[in-house]
């Protein structure tokens, strides 16, 4: 049972990581311009990335809602 719990957690962690890879790529292009200087993200890049994740997930939810409204 303990092991089954562990496998379930790991599966979820793997899904989250895969989705993180795909959102990082999308948000990198939107938020970090080629002209970005230095070795660290500046504060506007950081807030753009956080917003990018939240708006991407907003849009995901909107798509799911819209599709389920079409089905009914």
């Amino acid at each position, binding site marked *: 049972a303990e092991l089954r719990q562990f496998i379930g957690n790991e599966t979820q962690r793997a899904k989250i990581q895969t989705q993180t890879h*795909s959102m990082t790529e*999308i*948000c990198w292009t*939107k*938020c970090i311009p080629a002209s970005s200087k230095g070795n660290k993200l500046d504060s506007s890049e950081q807030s*753009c990335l956080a*917003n*990018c994740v*939240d*708006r*991407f997930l*907003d*849009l*995901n939810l*909107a*798509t*799911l809602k*819209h*599709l389920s409204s079409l089905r009914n």
Partner: protein
Amino acid sequence: MDSEAVKKAIIKQVQLESNMNNAKQLIEKINENCFQRCVPKPGSTLSSSESTCATSCMEKYMAAWNLVNASYVKRIQQEVHNNGFAT
């Protein structure tokens, strides 16, 4: 459960999974393409014009998928009819 019932159950399960899988792929493509197009600079909320764009984008993307699928199936049928094989 007789063997006919087992067969029907398998068929139903396979179709269900296939449809779920297809829907999942479609939703993924819609999210990527419509986010790309409708949210050029992500802000602290989804603005109303971004939402409107997204709804319109997803409806048109689904319509495009259906049209592409129909054109593709039609073409396969033509090829089978003309050459006796699918490409």
